[in-house]
C-alpha cells in the first residue's frame, strides 16, 4: 500500500477518510435487496432450459398448479402476450449490428443452457421450487454451436431463427496504411491470444422484488440494479406503463462489477408477476444462476509489424468475441470497446483491426469490469511480449520505445479517441522501481532452483472510463442535489449509484470541502428513482467523476447562499466571510464566528431579512458534463465517447513449478494514474480488487461447458476466486496526471486493472518458461494447462533432437 500521508490536511479530499457507508455491511446491519420482505410476499422460481439449443414442443404446467401454495405459473408464450421484448441497453442496430428480439422467457426456441422457460410463483420459496419440478417440458434438442469461429461456418446451426448467420456485428477499426507498414517491416510477429470465459461474481447475487402499488396501478421494483433510472425506462417500455408509475429502488449493493446492469429477463418478469397477482413477488438468484452470466471470451489473431529497432509500425488484429445468446444486457458492447481501445497506449498509427461479434448457444454475457478494455490489454500486451522475445529485447524496453509520450497529450488515437493525459513511460519505470526489477532480474539470472523457474512480467493497461455512447442510456453526464436542512445537516442525492466501491464517501469528501462543513454532517442518498435526481448510475468508473463533479457544483451554489446569509448576519461584505468545517468567521476579525447550523436556521427563518437575497431552500441541483466527449463524428466518422483515460503499469514476478505447472505470484507492483486521488484507501481498494480479478482470471477462474453446451461450472467449488494466499501484498504507487477537463482532474478509478494485471501474470509465466521453450497464450494459465504446455514443449524438443 502507498504512503497515505498528505500535505493538505485542511481538506478532506486526498485523505484516507473512513467510508461513511462501510459500517453497516461490516456489522451485518446493511439492508440488501433480499432483506426486504413485504406483507403478502410471494416468491418466484424460474425453470431454465437444460439444453443449449432446442425447440420447445410442449409445456405442461398442470402438475405445478396442483401444488398447494402455488399462486401462478407462466411460460414464455404467456409472458410474451403481456410484455414487449426487452429494450436493449445498447442496441446493436444503432452500431450497425443485428438486434435480436429478446423475450423474458424462451418462446418456441431455446438459445442457451439456463435460459428461462417458465416461472412458478408461490407462497414460499421451497414450494415454488418444488412445484417447478412438476412442470413438464418437451424439447426437440438441437446440435448447439459453442465456438465463435465455428459458429461462423456456413453450415453452423443458426442460433436466432431467421438470421442469415450467427455474426451479430462486424466492424473495422482502421487507420493509416497498415499494408504499407507491414510491407516495410523488418519483423512481423504473429500471436494468437485466447481469452476464456470468466466472470465477475459479486457475493450478493441478483435479486428483484416487485411490489404492486394498488393506489396508483404502478409498480415499485426493489432491485440489485446499477442503473435505476435507465432501468425504469426499460421497464416502462417492456411493461407498457409510463415511467411516472414506476419506481426503482436499489438498496445497498454487495458488489456488481457490471453484472447488475440491466436487461435481465427477471426484472420485467417480476414486475409482470406482481401485476398479475397483485402481490409482491421476489426472485433471488442462486450462485448457479449467477455463474450463467458470462463475459470476456475472445480470440485474437494479432500481427505486429516492427522495424529493426523494435518500433511498432503497424498492427493487425482479427478478433472474434463469443458473446453467447442474444441478450438485452450491455455485455456485447465489451467486444466493441476492445477494438475501439486499440492500440492502447502505443503510438502506432497504421492499424487494421477487425471485430467479429458472434452469437452462440452459450449463455449470454453481461458487462464485466474492464468492459472489453481488459481484452485489449491482454491481446496487446501478450503480442508485445512475443515481439520482445522474438527480437531479443527487454520487455520493458520495447514498451518504453513505443509508448505515446507525455508531451503528446491530448492525443488523438487512430480509432478516434482523445486521450486526455498520462505519462506511460513514467508509470512503467515507477512500477519497475517499486518491485525492484533489477534485483529480480539478477535472481532470475541465477537460474531455476528446485525446479522452480522465476519470470518477470510487465504489462500496461489504458482504460477509457466514464463513457457515453450516443443514442443509448450510457450517458456521460450526471446530476446531484445538495440539500442543507435548517439544522445544518446535509443530504447529497446523486444520480450515480455505488456498487459498494465507496463513492458516497468520496463524493461526501468533495462536498464537505466545497461547502465548508464536516464529514459527519453529511448523508448520501442514492439509487431511488423517486427521490434522486435523474442519473445513470454506476458503470465505467464514472461515479466519482460525474457524481462528485456534479455534487461539487451543487455544493458551490449552496455555499454561495449560506455565505450571503452569514455576511448579512455579520454585517460584512461577502468577500470577508470565511467558512471552514462548519464554522463561519470574518476575515481579520478574530473571535467573530457563527456555526453552520446558526446560519442555516437564520436562512430558513429569515426569508424577509437576512436571507432576502437568496433563493430558499438551501438546495441546489447541478449537472456535470465532461466537455471532451465528442459524439459528432469527425471526417472519418469517429467519435470520442470517453472523457478520461486512466492507465496503469503492472509488474509482477511469478514462480512456476515445472513439475506441476503450478504458479505462485511472488511480487506485484502497480503504478496507477487516476488523475487525482480523492481517497487513497478507496482508490487502492479498487485497484487491488481489479488486480485480484486479473490474477484470478489469468490463472484459474474459468466457466466451463461440456460438448453439449451444458455449463459445468455451477458453484464456488468450481469457480474459485483468489484468496489472500494467492496474492502477495501489492505495492501500489500513484502516478497521477490530472485530467484537464474533469472536476479536479479526476479520472475513473473503479474499472482499470483487470487486463493489465492478467497480462502481467501471463507474461511473467511465459517469461519464466523461456528456457523450456514454452509460450502459452491460451488462458487460463492454470497448473494443468501450464504443465500441458511444458510437456508439449518437451516432446517437441525430443522430436527435434531425434530428427
Amino acid at each position, binding site marked *: 500500500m502507498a504512503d497515505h500521508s498528505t500535505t493538505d490536511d485542511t481538506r478532506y479530499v486526498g485523505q484516507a477518510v473512513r467510508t461513511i457507508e462501510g459500517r453497516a455491511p461490516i456489522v451485518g446491519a446493511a439492508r440488501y435487496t433480499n432483506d426486504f420482505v413485504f406483507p403478502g410476499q410471494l416468491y418466484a422460481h424460474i425453470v431454465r432450459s437444460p439444453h443449449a439449443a432446442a425447440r420447445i414442443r410442449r409445456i405442461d404446467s398442470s402438475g405445478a398448479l396442483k401444488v398447494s401454495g402455488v399462486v401462478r405459473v407462466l411460460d414464455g408464450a404467456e409472458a410474451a402476450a403481456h410484455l414487449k421484448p426487452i429494450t436493449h441497453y445498447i442496441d446493436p442496430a444503432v452500431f450497425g449490428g443485428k438486434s435480436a428480439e429478446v423475450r423474458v422467457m424462451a418462446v418456441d426456441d431455446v438459445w442457451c443452457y439456463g435460459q428461462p422457460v417458465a416461472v412458478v410463483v408461490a407462497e414460499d420459496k421451497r414450494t415454488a421450487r418444488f412445484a417447478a419440478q412438476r412442470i413438464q417440458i418437451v424439447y426437440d434438442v438441437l446440435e448447439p454451436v459453442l465456438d465463435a469461429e465455428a459458429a461462423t461456418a456456413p453450415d453452423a446451426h443458426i442460433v436466432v431463427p431467421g438470421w442469415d448467420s450467427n455474426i451479430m456485428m462486424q466492424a473495422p477499426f482502421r487507420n493509416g496504411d497498415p499494408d504499407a507498414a507491414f510491407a516495410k517491416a523488418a519483423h512481423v510477429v504473429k500471436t494468437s491470444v485466447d481469452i476464456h470465459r470468466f466472470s465477475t461474481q459479486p457475493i450478493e447475487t441478483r435479486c428483484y422484488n416487485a411490489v404492486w402499488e394498488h393506489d396508483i396501478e404502478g409498480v415499485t421494483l426493489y432491485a440489485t440494479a446499477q442503473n435505476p433510472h435507465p432501468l425504469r425506462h426499460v421497464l416502462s417500455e417492456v411493461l407498457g406503463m409510463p415511467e411516472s408509475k414506476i419506481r426503482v429502488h436499489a438498496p445497498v449493493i454487495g458488489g456488481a462489477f457490471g453484472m447488475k446492469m440491466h436487461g435481465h429477463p427477471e426484472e420485467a418478469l417480476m414486475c409482470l408477476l406482481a401485476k398479475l397477482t397483485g402481490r409482491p413477488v421476489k426472485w433471488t438468484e442462486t450462485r448457479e444462476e449467477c455463474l450463467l452470466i458470462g463475459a470476456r471470451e475472445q480470440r485474437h489473431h494479432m500481427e505486429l509489424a516492427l522495424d529493426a529497432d523494435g518500433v511498432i509500425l503497424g498492427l493487425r488484429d482479427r478478433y472474434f468475441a463469443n458473446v453467447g445468446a442474444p441478450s438485452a444486457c450491455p455485455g456485447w458492447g465489451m467486444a466493441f470497446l476492445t477494438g475501439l481501445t486499440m492500440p492502447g497506449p502505443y503510438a502506432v498509427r497504421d492499424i487494421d483491426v477487425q471485430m467479429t461479434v458472434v452469437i452462440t448457444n452459450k449463455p449470454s454475457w453481461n458487462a464485466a469490469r474492464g468492459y472489453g478494455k481488459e481484452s485489449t490489454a491482454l491481446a496487446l500486451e501478450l503480442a508485445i511480449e512475443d515481439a520482445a522475445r522474438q527480437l531479443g529485447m527487454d520487455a520493458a524496453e520495447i514498451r518504453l520505445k513505443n509508448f505515446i509520450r507525455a508531451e503528446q497529450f491530448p492525443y488523438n488515437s487512430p480509432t478516434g479517441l482523445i486521450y486526455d493525459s498520462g505519462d506511460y513511460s513514467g508509470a512503467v519505470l515507477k512500477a519497475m522501481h517499486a518491485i525492484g526489477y533489477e534485483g529480480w532480474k539478477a535472481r532470475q539470472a541465477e537460474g531455476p532452483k528446485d525446479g522452480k523457474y522465476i519470470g518477470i512480467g510487465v504489462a500496461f493497461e489504458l482504460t477509457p472510463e466514464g463513457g457515453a455512447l450516443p443514442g443509448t442510456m450510457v450517458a456521460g453526464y450526471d446530476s446531484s442535489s445538495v440539500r442543507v436542512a435548517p439544522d445544518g445537516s446535509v443530504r447529497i442525492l446523486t444520480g450515480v449509484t455505488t456498487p459498494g466501491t465507496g463513492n458516497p464517501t468520496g463524493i461526501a469528501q468533495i462536498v464537505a470541502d466545497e461547502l465548508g462543513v464536516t464529514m459527519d454532517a453529511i448523508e448520501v442518498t442514492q439509487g431511488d428513482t423517486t427521490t434522486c435526481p435523474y442519473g445513470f448510475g454506476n458503470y465505467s468508473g464514472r461515479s466519482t467523476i460525474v457524481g462528485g463533479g456534479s455534487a461539487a457544483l451543487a455544493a458551490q451554489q449552496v455555499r454561495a447562499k449560506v455565505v450571503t446569509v452569514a455576511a448579512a448576519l455579520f454585517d460584512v461584505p461577502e468577500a470577508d466571510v470565511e467558512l471552514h468545517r462548519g464554522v463561519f468567521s470574518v476575515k481579520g476579525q478574530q473571535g467573530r464566528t457563527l456555526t453552520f447550523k446558526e446560519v442555516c436556521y437564520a436562512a430558513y427563518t429569515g426569508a424577509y431579512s437576512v436571507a432576502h437575497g437568496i433563493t430558499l431552500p438551501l438546495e441546489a441541483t447541478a449537472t456535470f458534463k465532461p466537455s471532451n466527449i465528442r459524439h459528432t463524428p469527425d471526417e472519418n466518422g469517429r467519435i470520442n465517447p470517453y472523457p478520461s483515460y486512466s492507465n496503469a503499469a503492472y509488474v509482477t514476478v511469478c514462480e512456476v513449478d515445472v513439475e506441476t505447472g503450478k504458479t505462485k505470484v511472488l511480487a506485484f507492483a502497480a503504478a496507477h494514474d487516476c488523475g487525482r486521488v480523492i481517497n487513497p484507501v478507496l482508490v487502492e481498494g479498487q485497484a487491488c480488487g481489479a488486480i485480484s480479478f486479473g490474477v484470478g482470471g489469468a490463472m*484459474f477462474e474459468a466457466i466451463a461447458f461440456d460438448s453439449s453446451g451444458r455449463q*459445468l461450472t455451477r458453484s464456488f467449488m468450481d469457480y474459485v476466486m483468489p484468496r489472500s494466499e494467492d496474492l502477495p501484498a501489492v505495492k501500489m504507487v500513484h502516478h497521477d496526471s490530472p485530467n484537464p477537463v474533469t472536476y479536479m482532474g479526476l479520472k475513473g478509478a473503479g474499472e482499470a486493472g483487470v487486463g493489465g494485471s492478467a497480462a502481467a501474470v501471463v507474461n511473467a509465466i511465459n517469461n519464466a518458461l523461456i528456457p523450456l521453450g514454452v509460450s502459452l497464450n491460451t488462458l487460463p494459465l492454470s*497448473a494443468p494447462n501450464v504443465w500441458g504446455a511444458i510437456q508439449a514443449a518437451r516432446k517437441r524438443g525430443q522430436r527435434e533432437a531425434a530428427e
Partner: protein
Amino acid sequence: MSLYPSFARPNSLAQASELLAGLSGGSVIIAGGQEIMPYINHGAMQPDIYIDIGGLKELRGISEADGVVSIGALTVHRELQGNAIVAEKLPMLADAASRAGGGRQVHNRATLGGNLVAMHPLYDIAPALLALGAEVELVKAGETRRTSLAALMHETSHGLGSEAILVRVLVPAMAAGTGWAYEKLKLSGGAYGSANAAATVQLDAGRITAATLMIGAVADRIIDAAAAVQGLIGQAWTAAAAEQLELRCPALVKQPLSDQQGSGEWRQAMAGVVARRAMAAAVARAGQK
C-alpha cells in the same frame, strides 16, 4: 421428501439409534451441517426429518488407551488441529485437518464424522486416516460394530447418514520415529485438492522397513499405493527410488478424475508427483521427533 422437514435432537446414542431404526427412510443425520446444508439449500436433497446428533456425548472427546487414539465423530477440524493427543500421537491427522479448505468458520463446525461419511474423493482426512490404518466404530439399529476405514469405504450398504451412526474413529498411535507427510496439490488457495498424498515411513539404518501411501483426489476412490511402495522396502530413499515411485503411482490410477480440479492426464501424472513428494518429506522427517 418434505418441504418443511422435522427436526429431532436425541440426547443419547441409544435414543438416536432407536429413532433412526423406527423411521422409514427420509431421515438424515446432521452434524455440523457443512456438507449437507448446501445440498439441501440447493434442492439436491429433500429430507423429511433431520436427526441432529450434536447432543450425543458418546460421539465427543479424544482419548488414548493401549496405543490407540479414539476420536469422537463429532470432533471438529479445529479440535483435530489443536488437540494435544492428536498433535503428539497423530501429527499427520492434525496436519491433514488443517489443510482442509473453508477457513476458520468451516473448521469450527465441520466434523470428522461428516467429513468421512461424505466419502468425497477430494477430501483430505480420509487419506491420512487410511495411511494410519484407522478403524471406525458404527452403530446401526442398536448394534455396535467395528471395522477398518478401508473396508468401510468399499461397503455399499453401511447406511451411514440415514440409518447408521459413525461413533468413533480409532487410530493406532504413530510409532516414535515414524516419518510422515501429507502433500496436497490444489489449483489455488480456495480450491479443493487436485492430487493428495499421505505417506508414513519407518527407517532403520537408512533403509525403509515399512511404508504406507494413500493417494487422494485423482480418482473417485482413494488409492492405496501399497503396490508402488512395496518396491521401497529394504531400500534406501535414493533419487532412483523416488523416480521409481513417481513412475509407478500413475499406473495405479485406472480412471482419473477429469473435472475443474484438472484434466485426467494431469491428475494421473500428479499422482506420481505428490506421492514422491510426500514420501520424500516423510523420509526426511523419519527418526526425528
